[in-house]
């Protein structure tokens, strides 16, 4: 019965029931829409700035632009380091339908090693399809020409040019200019520590040694950038803004290509260094260390075979002999010591001593021998320098004592770095009591002072140090800081570098300068002077001093015989010189390893350099 009654439906009640549910439903729908609107409001109004920023961050990428590295010129404007376009063969995988066929066709045109192809295919897998990937780098001119002619046959194959450092003179300037190479991890950390890393975002290379390293900041320039719009795959859509890079500053050197070539030619296979500076301002005119090496090998990463060859060569080409080679100065420092003798009244211009061919300390029978076995007889300071009498200086040195020698020579720059504008520099050794105690844990004996007085025993100098100390004599007490770079230039003009001149010595008697200069002048001018023969017939007046450094200890009564002694133990030949005599514009040092006597071997080379210097008029007009 009940069932029957229910079957007669109460339509009105059912409709009311449905309608109430429909009302609930529509209210729910409206409520949910309000939730959506509220959420939209939150995202699009409240957090709008946030999302706006993130959206811009998505689409805008900053692409750094590397600046062109500054160029390097010699003193007459000859290019020593340039940026040359190197060509590489690049392929865009996206545009190439059949990679295997394309590679095969390219291999018919130019030489492609399997290693190059494998490396390329690896890159293709690793990179995005629309990126241009290098197949072969450093194409030769003929390869570029072949590819240019066949360009039309290939889709997505291009020859790209980019700038790469090139040193047209090869090994001629290596030790001065140095080279650049790829930035390594340690250098990157240093750049970050210096706050410079951001400026290197697009740079691949950095100066490794020499001027390229010392002037890295000036040569590098300032990075530019492009703001580009990219899509989700990083493909460039358009350039929004572009700030060009500012090229590095060019640097101009005091070095002269002609002097360098002369130095290279006269040294040939001889290990050694030739350095010349202008004593008036410290500008370096010649800077050559032999043997050198080709810096271009390092620019694209040197092969380990080549590098090992350089590293293990017994001629040690990687050593910069001008600033890192430390040699006993030998007799070349006699003028310097003579000044000290005169200044301290240990000697006077007229003091004479008897040279029997040897010197003995009191209460000792050890003979310190003169290079002239039978002695020079009576000699004054002029004779002693000119003929390089050892006994005179033994005696004077002992009277001076180590302390006065060490102090005074330090003021002339011995035992100190010269402060030249490359980092590769040694300080040499100017021995003192303290030094010997620290180094050998021994007291200083009087017997140590004797060989020191002729620039032997512990005393070592670099050729550059010797040059600067000689310049000090010419400058009457003013020590020039040597510098390879004389000026910077860029689009806005050039800026000369002010010379750094420091007075380190004040003399008691100004006339002493003239005495010292005179001794060096006579060495060249007068018959019997150790450098006289080398400078016969010059059309300029020069001064100088020879030196011969013993490397092997010779027994008391034995004779030095170059023929019987091992080549590497033969004497080093040294020479310091300058010209013109009255107003010196160039001061030069020659250091030759195991070459023999300085007068016979080093002095003639100095003459050839000076001959060229005057013939070419290197810095005459200054």
């Amino acid at each position, binding site marked *: 019965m009940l069932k029957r009654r*229910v079957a007669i439906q109460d339509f009105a009640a059912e409709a009311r029931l449905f309608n109430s549910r429909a009302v609930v439903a*529509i209210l729910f729908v409206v409520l949910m829409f309000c939730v959506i609107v509220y959420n939209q409001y939150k995202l699009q109004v409240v957090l709008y700035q946030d999302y706006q920023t993130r959206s811009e961050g998505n689409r805008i990428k900053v692409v750094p632009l590397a600046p062109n590295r500054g160029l390097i010129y010699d003193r007459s404007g000859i290019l020593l380091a340039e940026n040359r376009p190197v060509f590489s063969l690049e392929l865009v995988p996206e545009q190439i339908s059949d990679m295997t066929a394309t590679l095969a066709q390219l291999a018919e045109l130019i030489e492609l090693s399997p290693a190059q192809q494998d490396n390329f295919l690896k890159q293709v897998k690793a990179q995005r399809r629309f990126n241009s990937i290098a197949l072969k780098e450093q194409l030769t001119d003929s390869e570029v020409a072949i590819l240019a002619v066949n360009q039309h046959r290939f889709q997505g194959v291009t020859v790209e040019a980019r700038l790469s450092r090139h040193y047209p003179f090869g090994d001629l300037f290596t030790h001065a200019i140095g080279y650049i190479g790829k930035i390594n991890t340690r250098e990157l950390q240093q750049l970050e520590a210096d706050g410079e890393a951001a400026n290197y975002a697009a740079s691949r290379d950095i100066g490794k040694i020499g001027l390229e390293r010392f002037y890295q900041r000036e040569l590098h320039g300032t990075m530019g950038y492009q703001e580009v719009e990219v899509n989700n795959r990083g493909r460039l859509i358009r350039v929004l803004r572009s700030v060009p890079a500012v090229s590095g500053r060019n640097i101009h050197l005091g070095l002269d290509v002609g002097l360098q070539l002369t130095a290279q030619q006269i040294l040939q296979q001889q290990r050694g260094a030739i350095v010349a500076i202008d004593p008036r301002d410290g500008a370096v005119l010649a800077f050559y260390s032999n043997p050198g090496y080709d810096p271009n090998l390092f620019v694209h990463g040197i092969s380990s075979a080549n590098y090992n060859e350089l590293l293990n060569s017994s001629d040690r080409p990687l050593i910069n002999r001008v600033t890192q080679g430390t040699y006993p100065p030998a007799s070349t420092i006699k003028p310097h010591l003579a000044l000290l003798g005169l200044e301290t009244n240990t000697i006077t211009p007229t003091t004479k001593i008897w040279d029997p061919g040897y010197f003995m300390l009191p209460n000792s029978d050890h003979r310190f021998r003169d290079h002239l076995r039978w002695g020079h007889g009576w000699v004054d300071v002029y004779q002693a320098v000119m003929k390089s009498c050892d006994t005179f200086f033994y005696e004077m040195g002992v009277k001076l004592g180590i302390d006065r020698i060490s102090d005074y020579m330090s003021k002339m720059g011995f035992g100190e770095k010269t402060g030249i504008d490359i980092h590769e520099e040694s300080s040499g050794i100017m021995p003192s009591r303290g030094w010997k105690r620290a180094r050998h844990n021994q007291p200083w004996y009087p017997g140590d002072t004797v060989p020191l007085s002729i620039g032997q025993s512990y005393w070592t100098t670099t050729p550059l140090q010797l040059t600067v100390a000689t310049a000090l004599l010419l400058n009457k007490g003013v020590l020039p800081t040597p510098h390879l770079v004389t000026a910077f230039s860029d689009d806005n003009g050039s800026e000369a570098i002010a010379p750094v001149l420091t007075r380190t010595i004040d003399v008691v008697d100004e006339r002493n300068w003239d005495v010292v200069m005179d001794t060096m002048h006579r060495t060249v001018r007068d018959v019997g002077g150790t450098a006289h023969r080398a400078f016969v017939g010059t059309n300029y007046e020069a001064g100088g001093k020879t030196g011969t450094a013993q490397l092997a200890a010779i027994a008391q009564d034995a004779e030095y015989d170059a023929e019987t002694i091992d080549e590497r133990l033969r004497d080093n030949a040294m020479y310091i010189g300058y010209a013109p005599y009255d107003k010196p514009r160039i001061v030069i040092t020659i250091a030759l390893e195991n070459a023999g006597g300085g007068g016979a071997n080093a002095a003639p080379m100095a003459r050839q350099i000076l001959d060229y210097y005057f013939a070419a008029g290197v810095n005459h007009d200054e």
Partner: protein
Amino acid sequence: MNDQFTGNARHSRLATFHIDTPLLLGLLALIGFGLMVLYSASGQNMAMMKGQMVRLGVAVAVMVIFAQIKPQTLKRWSLPLFIAGLGLLVAVLLVGHVGKGAQRWLDLGFMKFQPSEVMKLAVPMAVAWFIASHSLPPKLWHLVVGFIMCVIPTILISQQPDLGTSILIATAGVFVLFLSGMSWRLIAFVAALVSAFLPVLWLFLMHDYQRQRVLTFLNPESDPLGSGYHIIQSKIAIGSGGVDGKGYLHGTQSQLEFLPERHTDFIFAVLSEELGLMGVLLLLGLYLFIISRCLLIASRARDNYGKLVAGSFTLTFFVYVFVNIGMVSGLLPVVGVPLPLVSFGGTSMVTLMAAFGVIMSVGTHKRMLAAP
């Protein structure tokens, strides 16, 4: 019943073809707006536009055809359709075509067919048929039977696996039970039961990728380049649109393809970015108009079957809208539901328009029957 609208409808020629004019206008406005957004979202791809227009044409035609079928006829066919649908679901599980890692398609030789689309209509229709064959409010055992009718196809579809669709189908059935006057106390009880069921769902029924989606939803930044990428880029697109938007065709997120699935599931983000909050309000307005109109039609339907079917279809339509917008704007996990009538894509659009056809049938045939 003699309100302003029936007056208008009588004068409308469209009424002859059982077309509800306001609903049609609302749908056409939405479709037009959607095509405009799609033009931009597809990257101005004319081939895609053409495909979408053809599909829309077919879908409108299907709607018109369904509008012609009398509600009584539909009611008669509800149960057979439901049973046939179940058979097809079983068939899919046995011989179904595997697409995108899921067995959803049945290859009929000349076309691929997704039986779950049929069930979107068949489940609410069958449940409505059963409930409406008794007086309202339904008794407990009616509800239990109705509920079972919802659950069986849900389980079958979730095995395909297609969790999103299965839940939506279950929801459509449950909406019928809700609209039929199921007591609030029972609703609260079922809600509690569902809550208790969630851990079971998480542990045993969900696949890894589904769990991942939920985890990503809870913290999208945890995996910004992986599964969180979609939702992060989508929120950036929406947020950076601001009030006015970046301008039609000028959305950087969408045009530069930072936004994934920009023409399908995430088209709402394109709209938000290019047309801003204003565009969003316009879209929501259109959806609200269509939903309101449909509920009005349902409440005016003469018989319970029509009311329940029309009401259920309407609410299901709303759920699509809400779930899509919710997932695109980060309110809900990503479940792969398209934005109705706007997203690019086929089958579901036809099903949807068929449902609107049924609603129109319910709305228009009622008046004809009511006329003396």
